């Protein structure tokens, strides 16, 4: 019975949350192989959602001056400058030295392979994953976080009391408290827009369809096709992230096509919802309690002897 519920929630968390006749689960597929790093998603998100500035700091992290997903940045484009393509054993150690300039020849003619043109600049627009098993939602004591009919996870700003339990419950480090008001904020997958049949602001603004919005089932099919195409075209490093319903969060509502290991983009390689083990923990705690009680009884009975 419990197992059966679990499976249906994986397929359709909205139904699992009690929605009747819920629409299909909606989500994002972010294809980083076509991202051009324009940050239109960041700007469109801020404009639509009225998100305040996240600070005017030059971070020196390539062209990323946003830094991370925070209460004031619900989309974050990461820029990764890579001297060597993924899979190259020298990638991490070679650094800039592989350019080999100025000796003995022009760039691209020194060292192995084709030198300079192997340089990669990876760009990836990160966002709340809208997990199937959402830690933030599980731990929220006020009900401010809730599962929408679209299967997304949204904070209700008028209910949040700023306790911050959800912050430590998110395996991706997405949800965050705003310093000035103490409440938590994150991507709503534009709940107000999608409810009106519109596309979320970031996906709408994305010029290259790197951010795709739609029913999650469709997106997963599209993503699988895209990976296959890239593999055919000689991009073996293309892989999906967050698409697998059997991963530690039951699969993400917002998943990604990456061109390198997740860690390269600052993503956890094997995210686990911290509340996943709660039933077992409670079971074990129960067993332990029973054992204690039994022990006490035994002791008592023994004392009688």
């Amino acid at each position, binding site marked *: 019975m419990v197992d059966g519920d679990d499976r249906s929630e994986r397929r359709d968390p909205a139904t699992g949350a009690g929605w009747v006749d819920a629409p299909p689960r909606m989500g994002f597929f972010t294809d980083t192989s*076509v991202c*051009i*790093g*324009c*940050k*239109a998603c*960041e*700007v469109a998100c*801020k*404009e639509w959602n009225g998100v305040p*500035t*996240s*600070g*005017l*700091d*030059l971070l*020196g992290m*390539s*062209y990323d*001056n*946003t830094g991370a997903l925070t209460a004031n940045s619900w989309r974050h484009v990461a820029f990764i*400058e890579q*001297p060597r393509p993924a899979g190259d054993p020298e990638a991490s150690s070679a650094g*800039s030295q592989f*350019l080999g*300039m*100025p000796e003995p*020849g*022009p*760039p*691209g*003619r020194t060292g192995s392979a*084709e030198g*300079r*043109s192997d*340089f*990669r*600049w*990876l*760009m990836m627009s990160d966002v709340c994953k809208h997990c199937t098993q959402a830690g933030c939602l599980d731990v929220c004591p006020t009900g401010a976080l809730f599962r929408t009919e679209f299967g997304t996870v949204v904070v209700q700003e008028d209910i949040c009391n700023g306790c911050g339990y959800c912050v430590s419950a998110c395996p991706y480090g997405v949800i965050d408290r705003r310093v000035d008001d103490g409440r938590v904020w994150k991507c709503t997958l534009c709940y107000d827009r999608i409810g009106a049949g519109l596309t979320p602001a970031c996906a709408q603004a994305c*010029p*290259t*369809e790197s951010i795709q919005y739609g029913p999650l089932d469709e997106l997963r099919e599209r993503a699988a096709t895209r990976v296959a195409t890239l593999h055919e075209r000689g991009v073996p490093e293309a892989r999906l992230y967050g698409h697998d319903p059997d991963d530690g969060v039951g699969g993400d509502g917002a998943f990604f096509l990456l061109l390198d290991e997740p860690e390269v983009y600052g993503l956890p390689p094997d995210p686990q919802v911290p509340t996943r083990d709660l039933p077992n923990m409670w079971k074990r705690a129960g067993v332990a309690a029973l054992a204690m009680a039994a022990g006490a009884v035994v002791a008592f009975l023994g004392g009688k002897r």
Partner: protein
Amino acid sequence: MAEAHPVGFQWVMEARKRGAKVFHVDPRFTRTSASADTYLPIRAGTDIALLGGVVNYILTNELDFREYVLAYTNAATIVSDDYVDAEDADGLFSGFDPATGAYVQDSWQYAGHERDSGSGHTAMDRETAAGLRHESHGAPISGQVERDETLQHPRCVYQILKRHFARYTPEMVERVCGLPQEKFLELARAWTQNSGRERTGCLIYSVGWTQHSVGVQYIRTGAIIQLLLGNVGRPGGGVLALRGHASIQGSTDIPTLFNLLPGYLPMPHHAQHPTFDDWVDAIRHPGQKGFWGNARAYAASLLKAYWGDAATPDNDFCYDYLPRLTGDHGTYQQVLDMIDGKIRGYFLLGQNPAVGSAHGRAQRLGMANLDWLVVRDLFMIESATFWQRGPEVATGEIVPQECRTEVFFLPAASHVEKEGTFTQTQRLLQWREKAVDPPGDARSELWFFYHLGRKLREKLAGSPLPRDRALLDLAWDYPTHGPHAEPDAEAVLREINGYDVATGRPLASFAEARDDGTTAVGCWIYAGVYADGVNQAARRRPGHEQDWVAAEWGWAWPANRRMLYNRASADPQGRPWSERKRYVWWDEAAGRWTGHDVPDFEVTKAPSYRPPEGASGPAALAGDDPFVMQSDGKGWLFAPSGVLDGPLPTHYEPAESPVRNSFYGQQGNPTRKTYRHPVNSINPSPPQEHSQVFPYVFTVSRLTEHHTAGGMSRTVAPLAELQPEMFVEVSPELAELAGLTHLGWAHLVSARAVIEAKVLVTDRLVPLRVDGRVIHQLWLPYHFGFEGLVTGDSANDLFGITLDPNVLIQESKIGTCDVRPGRRPTGPALLELVDDYRTRAGIVAGSVPSALTVDVPVERPGEAEGDR
């Protein structure tokens, strides 16, 4: 393109998804490089060496699309015996006049047409940026030309081209550009493979490509390649300029330029065009082939639109009211004139020269020496506050209490707060509605100019002075609406389109324009945009409801034609080159041209048509002459006139370069426009001494996150925070060499200025090996200034003023500099530092390096005197 045109870049990504191969050539690895299949790092300013290499690759391997080249270009045309190529004269073409530093073009002409270049002397053309008027048509050629269809004649264009680029080998490309030969060959192979009946390739550039002292010739070289490969006038081909703003194409069509009137009619010159007939004949060249023969009708109709009832055939349509050119009135000449106190007032609209123009200090000093300055902008930009907060205030050069300029700041409506059209790079006019009212006192440009004109006319009413007639006789009667009396933008569009004066009926095309005062046309090339009284620019039929050419989305000039010279998409017999590339073709049964687009050809002129002896105008073009705005109907591989700095592109080093020209003794463009002025010091380049004082090459461009001089992005938090500080990108090697640290400060020095920036050390920049030397390049964004939410020093302050001779565009993509760790000095110490550099570099105030670095061959007796 991804960096500066991310929205347009979606189509490149789409093409890539379908298997297109994308090459990106840039001095630094950008967001475009990241999305390209192959990235080619290049030394800034060596584009002609690279592209000339491609031309040489094509000709050496005979990879040109021969049938196209033979029929549609001037490859077979025989050039004058007098012509001497730059290859044979160490970098100078024949006809160079050292006295003026300009060419006499007689010897460049086709054989037998040596006198066709008019006066032949180009010094005056350079002063007035005459090349600009060729944006819509070529230079004149009269009568028939000599041809050799076998392309074997030693003086045919094909052979001249071959000889001219013979030394542009892959080895030379590597030596000059710092680009590995294999990468170059990969590019050359891929480009040439996209040629022929079945395939086309397209060349895209952004306007930074033009901002060089050889800028026009960069694009000429690209055009030569595209012509050789048959990639012009065919779907998927072309040389596409990505404009820097939403309607820059529109601002040359209906120009904000000193030397042009609407529709590329030249501004009359006081000496050359004293009468209406002189002016018109200079445009239409009586007896000339092609479509400019009707220029009299376009000119008369324009004046009729300006002066309405007052303009009659008897008074030459008030031609005498038109202002006249007296020489160079370009923006840089004006700034120097301001510094010298020759200009008293200035209107600045949608422009921020204090940040966006070359030599920011000259710009600010000029604007500080006016009686009045009107700035209309969305935000309080640097060009409005330079007198109060500019860098020259810190150095003591401008004292706010004493600055004589009275600045009027007028808030402007943004593009969503007013209606009107944008004309984009495809010449497509798209109407936009007003979404919201402008806030407060903000008004549209249309409102501003209409009411300014109205008030001036009110003030002058009753004036007996003849000089006031031009203003008082204007047809200035646009309908207005709303509480602020906003002029009706559609009424203006209707006037631009043109109408029959008697009935008011809008013209359907420019063919209806008359020279007898019966029609008024504001911009003849736009005739048809209001055909049938319908705003054709406002059409928005979705793409899925029409074919891929989408003729019912907006309106393209001329005549809603989406691709110019599309006659070339069919073979000489009028058949599509291939099914795959079918676009416009001759329908034999119907006896007319037809296809997906409006044919760019007389619609019933058969491919077999041959002009009769003595024909002129359009009738003189044969049925297989697709380049109908060219006087010989051909695409010009070789330009006998129209380009002032040579009939063929030639590699010259930028005005400031750390290396010697590897091809010729002539170092830079010998005809480049220079200004001798105490404010305009130019860093020395070889063969001059002391070039090592400024050992590094710097180049500037845009970031996706900001817009040009930053007035619309540094003022807006969601954009400003994405690139919050001025920085300079350097390679790890240069960082080590110059002692720079990541996120530390550096300052850059040129003979004009010193600016500071945070350092980003990145592998995206690489040192290049050029001619056996290592050349370091630095890159800076040019968006920063001292106003806005995020501020920083302006990169354009580093540049001097050196211009391309054809269109007077500034060389603002390349300069030389020194870079040092730490922050720049402030106050008087700043000036001392720059002074010190100038002294060390041997720079004398008020002088510029000689443009000529070779001896001029003696061609005609008497002209070699004063050869310096």
